[in-house]
């Protein structure tokens, strides 16, 4: 190193800085890409970006190694004629050939039966476009990865409070005094959460982490509550019990803003049992939620219209209406429900001392009641009541996949929604805050099709591929009540599968249940490895042939940037660009990056030319859509409407003249409109000028209480963010769930579940949260498998993505199974030993590492560090395949056969959320003669045509040059 008194990079070469948006994970931070002589020299956080405020994580800082990874695919590839699928024997073809091949195939399918085409995408950030393509094509068989990610968290809270965590909302740590984090992956909402937690701690806030494992965020918690996996619901119910028993709830909040005081028909024999008692009302013409329920007035001791000004209702009690109907306030039903969920009961279930559970409830309740915040912000509620200030109860929560990825996750998360509501923390300072476009009506308005006839040849799908069912009529089932979708989402098996069930697509397609398909397109989803359950079997299904010798899944196209394990199984490989090589939008139509204070969306713009023949998948979709003549992409004469993706983004409107498009910023011919406005041909330029991000700050009076904030709701309605401006009353008691349960109980008119599913629906669609053990526990020999097994994502890796990254893989080139030393002592193995981990479905061999930071009934490992040999541009001797292992081999994608069905997904019965974390295992020492290598092993994947040769022993990167000494 030549040291001078001062240095400057610009003395070495021509330096340019370009702003764009990161894509090293789903966080979507603003970045500055520093180029020296046109090559990437440095990527840092964009200081003027609202999300990350200039900071960046380990992944974002390693973007260079992703860009230059030897795992990059660079040419379209076709499985060589005669070669077997899965052997990676490909030949290079041109884009013209690739597109023609797809076009021919898809045109035929669209004309015959569009649902034989299935499009499933992984961690993409373009679901608005991919979903639109599927709808335009006419297939219902579309979903992204949400079903195996965190749909329970989305659905559980959106069906309760009209919003959820991460993109949808989050903890207001700027003002909270107590922060409780439950089961959150290391990297969730990574940089913003890290910024917020550290500032919260510096301000002296108290941080409690409820998690079986103490790593990452939990490491800096003031208190660690090591709970047994899958029992969060029990803990939360007991906390609710204690809050109720002690009177630590926010009564005023519950009465006005939730359905707590509304009267429910409590007479079990009544036809409307379990529904709110409704009275005739004059509903406004465009009304989502007519205020037609009743309260029991404390003063007059009689029923009155709910939210009648000046009336104080009873929250507890049992009453009889004039027509003789027995009713109870929803809150009374909640109290009845919680009666048996005592801390002592929960202590048995969760493994936590009852005193701890009580203390947690007291800390939450006392902080909420005694540290109330009042901000001098006047606002008006939906009932035209003026408020001089915004108040808040400073207890904030954040929860993610640790709660969600269980088959009891939905109801557990409902219990969390109830707790947050009891404490009065919804969209209030110091509590939970929404992010635009949330809050949305409960449930949000889009609905899936509800009739098999929605799928017709050469016609777009009648309905949206994904939506939010509000009652059984919204289910997408045939006359027998069976699924129309390949993944069986929105069927009676998983009625509220609002993100689909990608995790069952391959198994269902292979089995031909509910029907065989022809073509499966996978975008950026590693379904032959870490994104699937039961990995070994799924890999077999992908290459399985029928009696005629044809593949059971006839055609598989994979679009990816890297040579993942799944690419090996493709018949057609489409090379995607890296994030530095393309346009992208992080759209209000999808999952934007809004802040608490207003809508935010962002874009990516290319800072480098595409490598080889890489082509962005968006362009491919628009090109295919145009070639197939899908209505959105061609004009009346069938002529091309959009030149390319950037052109599409600027000019597309959800319907002609709607003024709503993919990007919310700088709309209108003058670029002066937000959210809604005519297309602006210079929209991209405006984004680039502003750091590739658009942030609309709402006036303070629109930033809080948005479920019931009249000004905000009308503003949001006027700007096309929501369909209705009605108040969004919190569903403490979920009538939506009760509607499904009634159908199973044979009450009322309408659709009925098939007999095998009636008990299942009646049990799990409980309008009040309840606790049950994870489903698989009751269907396997749980005593033989006494341990819960979990995975977590390390902060320096995004799923399987970063093993091809030379810098990040040095941090985690292989993984261990972490076990409490007590487990090792009981099983007679030592720290570092080779062990077997066995579930009811298989076993893997790995190395163990003792840890005191894990609850003794739990074992865990870092997710997706283990790789199949040769994949991801790694040598066959790489640590990832020799010493790394994947837990997915042990997790079944289906439950064992039982009364409700032979092939039900190993998932939540309400939402179809993949129950990854229900896994139960036992561990034991590997034999002394066994090889020191993980099992199972797979034949190494060869290097693909167009893939860069290995970089050899040394890699010395200097701004785009790999110097050779």
């Amino acid at each position, binding site marked *: 190193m030549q040291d001078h008194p001062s240095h400057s990079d610009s003395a070495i070469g021509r330096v340019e800085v370009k702003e764009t948006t990161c894509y090293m994970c789903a966080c979507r931070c603003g970045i500055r890409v520093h180029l020296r002589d046109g090559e990437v020299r440095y990527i840092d956080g964009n200081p003027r970006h609202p999300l990350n405020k200039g900071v960046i994580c380990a992944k974002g800082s390693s973007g260079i190694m992703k860009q230059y990874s030897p795992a990059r695919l660079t040419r379209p590839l076709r499985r060589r004629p005669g070669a077997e699928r899965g052997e990676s024997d490909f030949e290079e073809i041109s884009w013209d050939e690739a597109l023609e091949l797809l076009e021919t195939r898809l045109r035929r399918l669209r004309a015959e039966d569009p649902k034989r085409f299935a499009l499933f995408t992984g961690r993409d950030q373009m679901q608005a476009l991919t979903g639109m393509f599927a709808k335009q094509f006419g297939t219902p068989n579309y979903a992204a990865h949400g079903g195996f990610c965190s749909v329970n968290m989305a659905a559980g809270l959106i069906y309760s409070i009209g919003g959820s965590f991460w993109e949808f909302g989050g903890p207001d740590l700027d003002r909270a005094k107590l922060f409780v984090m439950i089961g959150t992956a290391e990297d969730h909402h990574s940089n913003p959460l890290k910024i917020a937690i550290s500032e919260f701690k510096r301000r002296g806030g108290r941080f409690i982490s409820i998690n079986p494992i103490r790593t990452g965020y939990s490491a800096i918690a003031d208190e660690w509550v090591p709970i047994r996996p899958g029992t969060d619901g029990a803990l939360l119910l007991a906390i609710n019990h204690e809050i109720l028993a002690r009177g630590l709830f926010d009564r005023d909040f519950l009465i006005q803003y939730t359905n707590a005081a509304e009267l429910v028909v409590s007479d079990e024999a009544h036809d409307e049992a379990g529904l709110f008692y409704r009275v005739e009302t004059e509903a406004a013409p465009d009304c989502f939620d007519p205020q037609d329920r009743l309260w029991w007035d404390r003063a007059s001791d009689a029923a009155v219209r709910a939210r009648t000004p000046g009336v104080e209702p009873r929250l507890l009690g049992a009453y009889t209406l004039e027509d003789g109907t027995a009713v109870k306030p929803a809150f009374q039903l909640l109290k009845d429900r919680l009666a048996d969920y005592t801390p002592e009961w929960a202590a048995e279930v969760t493994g936590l001392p009852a005193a701890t559970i009580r203390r947690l409830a007291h800390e939450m309740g006392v902080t909420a009641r005694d540290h109330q915040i009042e901000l001098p912000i006047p606002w008006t509620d939906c009932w035209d009541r003026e408020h001089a200030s915004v108040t808040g109860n400073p207890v904030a929560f954040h929860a993610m996949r640790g709660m969600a990825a269980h088959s009891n996750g939905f109801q557990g998360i409902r219990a969390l929604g109830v707790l947050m509501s009891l404490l009065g923390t919804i969209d209030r300072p110091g509590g939970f805050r929404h992010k635009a476009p949330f809050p949305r009506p409960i449930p949000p308005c889009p609905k899936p099709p509800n009739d098999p006839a929605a799928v017709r040849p050469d016609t777009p799908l009648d309905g949206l591929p994904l939506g939010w069912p509000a009652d059984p009529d919204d289910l997408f089932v045939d006359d027998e009540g069976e699924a129309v979708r390949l993944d069986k989402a929105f069927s009676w098996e998983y009625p509220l599968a609002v993100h689909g069930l990608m995790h069952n697509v391959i198994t269902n397609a292979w089995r031909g249940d509910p029907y065989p398909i022809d073509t499966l397109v996978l975008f950026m989803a590693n379904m032959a490895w870490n994104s699937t359950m039961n990995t070994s079997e799924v890999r077999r299904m992908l290459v399985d042939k029928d009696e005629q010798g044809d593949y059971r899944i006839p055609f598989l196209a994979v679009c990816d940037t890297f040579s993942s394990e799944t690419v090996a199984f493709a018949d057609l490989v489409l090379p995607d660009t890296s994030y530095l090589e393309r346009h992208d939008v992080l759209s209000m139509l999808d999952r934007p990056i809004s802040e608490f204070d207003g809508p935010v969306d962002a874009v990516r713009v290319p800072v480098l030319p595409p490598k080889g023949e890489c082509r962005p998948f968006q362009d491919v979709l628009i090109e295919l859509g145009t070639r197939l003549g899908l209505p959105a992409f061609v004009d009346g004469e069938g002529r091309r409407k959009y030149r390319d993706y950037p052109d599409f983004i600027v000019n597309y409107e959800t319907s002609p003249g709607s003024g709503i498009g993919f990007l919310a910023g700088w709309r209108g011919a003058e670029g002066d409109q937000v959210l809604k406005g005519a297309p602006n041909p210079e929209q991209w330029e405006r984004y680039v000028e502003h750091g590739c991000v658009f942030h609309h700050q709402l006036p303070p009076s629109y930033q809080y209480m948005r479920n019931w904030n009249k000004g905000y709701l009308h503003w949001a309605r006027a700007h096309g963010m929501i369909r209705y401006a009605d108040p969004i009353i919190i569903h403490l008691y979920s009538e939506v769930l009760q509607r499904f349960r009634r159908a199973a109980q044979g009450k009322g008119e309408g659709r009925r579940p098939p007999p095998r599913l009636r008990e299942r629906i009646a049990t799990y669609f409980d309008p009040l949260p309840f606790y049950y053990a994870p489903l698989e526990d009751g269907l396997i020999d749980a005593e033989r498998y006494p341990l819960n097994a979990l995975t977590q994502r390390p902060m320096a890796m995004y799923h399987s993505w970063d093993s091809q990254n030379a810098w990040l893989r*040095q*941090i985690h*080139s*292989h*993984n*261990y199974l972490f076990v409490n030393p007590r487990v090792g002592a009981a099983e007679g193995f030592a720290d570092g030993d080779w062990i077997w981990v066995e579930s009811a479905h298989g076993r893997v061999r790995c190395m163990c590492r003792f840890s005191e930071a894990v609850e003794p009934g739990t074992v865990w490992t870092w997710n997706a560090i283990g790789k199949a040999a040769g994949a991801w541009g790694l040598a066959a001797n790489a640590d990832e395949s020799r010493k790394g292992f994947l837990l997915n081999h042990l997790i079944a994608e289906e439950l064992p056969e039982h009364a409700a069905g032979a092939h039900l997904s190993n998932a939540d019965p309400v939402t179809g959320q993949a129950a990854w974390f229900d896994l139960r295992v036992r561990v034991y020492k590997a034999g002394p003669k066994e090889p020191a290598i993980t099992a199972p092993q797979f034949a190494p994947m060869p290097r693909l045509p167009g893939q860069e040769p290995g970089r050899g022993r040394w890699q010395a990167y200097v701004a785009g040059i790999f110097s050779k000494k």
Partner: protein
Amino acid sequence: MHPAFSVILLTTLLGAGQGLFLAMFTGQLYAIAHFLPLQTSGFYASGSLLALSLLLGGLAASFFHLGRPERAWRAASCWRTSWLSREVIVLPLTMGLVAAYALTHLLGWTAPWFRVGALAVDLSLILGVLGTLASLALFVCTAMIYAAVRFLEEWHSPLTVSNFLLLGSASGFMLAAAYSAWLGNPLVGFFGTWAVILTLAAALSRGAHLLRNARLEHRSTVQSAIGVRHSALQQKAQGATGGSFNTREFFHGRSARTLRWVRAFFLLTVFPLPVVLIALAHAEVSSTLALTAFAVQFVGLLAERWYFFAEARHPQNLYYQSVS
């Protein structure tokens, strides 16, 4: 510490070379004092040249230790602060003096220059004295490279210096005895006696060092390393799973059993075995036995030096206990 073979070879070869030279000059001094018969110039010359070749071998080995041997000349610049720099200066000086001493004998430039009392001072005597001083200085420099690193508490002891001095000298005298035996020279007994004396002294020094290190309590603990005061403190991850310079340079990577075995081996082969062999060689007048005595001791010294490195536990190792 990781025992690098180049450094093991460097220190043992230098030690033997210095020791052999000291033996040669001691022989000459004894001869001048008439305690021993005067030897031919060839005896001293060949012996010193042998010493020189050992020093050269050591020097050659040192280059294998350097990342950038072509810049080795730069290493002479920091003699004010660095023992390594001092060694780099003293080593060629010693080699030069040994070479000059050999040359003086070879060319027979032994005519007295002046007299001090009964002592006739010739060039070889002056060079011998200077060479002796240089050799001793070199022992100190080499040893101080290790002994001066206070963080390596196993090394940070005067015993490191006495070990290097005594073990190097012992092996040099042992070689001198073997050399004499090989020539059929009667000095086997003289050199052998000194070799035995030095070996026994070295045994005392090295034994004391082993005892000291066995009782050594390291100043740093994992608690002071990260500043957390708790008795149950364990590393789980060191930040890299594929190893790093820190795991390669500072760890020997062998089991405690291997270490014990190596220690037993060198305690046998450096001390009792060569003593017995050289005594037998003297008694039996066997050059083979004498050569064997030296060879055994030298092999033992390689093991001793390996153990010297392996035994030292660097405080940085507190940061590299576990991978996960």
